[in-house]
């Protein structure tokens, strides 16, 4: 904010001239990056197909309606598998995330210079690789099936859970731990009396939150052969059985809504 004198009246500007120019300049840079990227994408796009999309879409919609309700009988088991992948995957992730989180939190890590960077690297690599890519790798290693999906979900969720958990550990009230230390408690006792009670609610919240996300993610793992309802989706799409596809999409929608409701209920009862 700048006020200056000009012709007997005070002039007020929100920014100095230099600031104003730099704001414009950054808009200009942003805009040119965007147009450049857009240009490159549009070069790789066959616009004839895009123009054609509306007819394609109406055609597809026509073929998807009505959903083939009788196919539902084949879907109960995949849905059950999908839920299992998400639940067991979350459980695996939590088992590993807890020690990683304690190693990553600045106030509980055994060594700031050695252990903490390793833990942080574990967290970043687990988080940056999508569960579908983990599944792609695991299917080639342990073969297609529910197990590959479960492990993929687990590997992907370790980083997520550990990150949120270590942030919670770093935010605890240190005076409570200090009080426990002052009684002559050992390191392990400080952990279970001073720290664990403080992070337990966060831990419960994180697990339910991640479970909800994992239900969503495990619906697509079948696309690379890792079990769950995605297998049926893949098969139906490749055989052009569009009425089955629409039913599967409805089932996914239903599963996600139910899981969201369940997790909201659980989180509500925890807090």
């Amino acid at each position: 904010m700048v006020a200056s004198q000009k012709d007997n009246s005070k002039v007020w500007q929100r920014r100095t001239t230099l600031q104003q120019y730099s704001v414009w300049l950054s808009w200009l840079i942003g805009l040119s990056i965007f147009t450049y990227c857009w240009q490159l994408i549009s070069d790789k796009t066959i616009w004839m197909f895009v123009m054609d999309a509306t007819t394609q879409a109406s055609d597809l919609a026509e073929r998807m309606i009505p959903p083939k309700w009788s196919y539902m009988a084949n879907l109960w088991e995949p849905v059950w598998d999908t839920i299992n992948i998400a639940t067991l995957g979350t459980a695996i992730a939590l088992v590993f995330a807890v020690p990683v989180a304690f190693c990553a939190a600045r106030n509980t890590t055994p060594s700031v210079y050695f252990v903490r960077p390793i833990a942080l690297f574990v967290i970043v690599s687990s988080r940056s690789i999508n569960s579908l890519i983990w599944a792609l790798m695991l299917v080639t290693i342990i073969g297609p099936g529910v197990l590959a999906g479960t492990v993929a979900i687990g590997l992907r969720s370790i980083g997520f859970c550990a990150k949120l958990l270590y942030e919670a550990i770093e935010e605890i009230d240190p005076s409570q731990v200090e009080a426990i230390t002052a009684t002559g408690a050992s390191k392990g006792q400080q952990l279970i009396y001073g720290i664990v009670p403080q992070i337990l609610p966060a831990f419960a919240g994180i697990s339910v939150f991640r479970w909800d996300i994992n239900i969503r993610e495990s619906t697509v793992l079948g696309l690379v052969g890792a079990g769950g309802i995605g297998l049926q989706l893949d098969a139906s799409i490749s055989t052009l059985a569009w009425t089955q596809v629409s039913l599967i999409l409805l089932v996914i929608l239903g599963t996600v809504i139910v899981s969201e409701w369940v997790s909201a209920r659980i989180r509500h009862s925890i807090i």
Partner: protein
Amino acid sequence: MLRLDSLVKKYKTGDMALKSVNLEIPNGQVLALIGPSGAGKSTLIRCVNRLVEPTSGNVWLGDVELTRLGSSSLRKARRKMGMIFQEYALVERLSVMENVLSGRLGYTGFWRSFFRKFPQPDIDEAFHLLERVGLDHMANKRADELSGGQRQRVGICRALIQNPEILLIDEPTASLDPKTSRQIMRLICELCEERQLAAIINIHDVLLAQMFSKRIIGLQLGEVVYDGPPDGLTPEVLTRIYGEEDWEATVERVDEDNLDAPADILG
């Protein structure tokens, strides 16, 4: 008996929190430590049980020298020093009983404490102490359901169940209202009397210090500037501790023993 020998604490930032403090506290003496914020009161009692590591000097508890102890003998020594905190520092999501029993952690093995299987005498003692402070019906309440005064009582029980030789008490009344403050101070003094405990009480409030203790230490910028009885706190002495201010009201009020007036003059 607790003895501090030329205790020095210098923080990494370069602040000299304690400049060679010498102090001797005989068994059973309740001592009040007064001084402005930043005088080093809190650092001093934390240097005793080494929640803060002293830079140099010695601390003797009986015939044990504390500053050179290794971690396991330090834990043994900490059992002999009960600590009571400013904001109670109870583990809020544990029950009252668990908080009291946590005072026995130094005596209990890891797995016993993990499964909450404390020895029966500890549990009897915990109930006894809770009865003494009038909270035995609250044993299974969670600590965060209690009021400030009740929480500080639990804090006192946690310190006493350690069966300490000395209590280190950091601003016990700072977050309590004037009436509860007095009740808590009275309770602490009674308990020290009953058990013949020595105690160092950091306290902001000069009036409360004068009411409840026989010996007062004035700390200013890490140095002891007054050591004597409560009625020696003349305006000159208070000026030396806290700096220039109109102290007549504080001194007069003590003379009149008009103790129900609001005590928080120093805020």
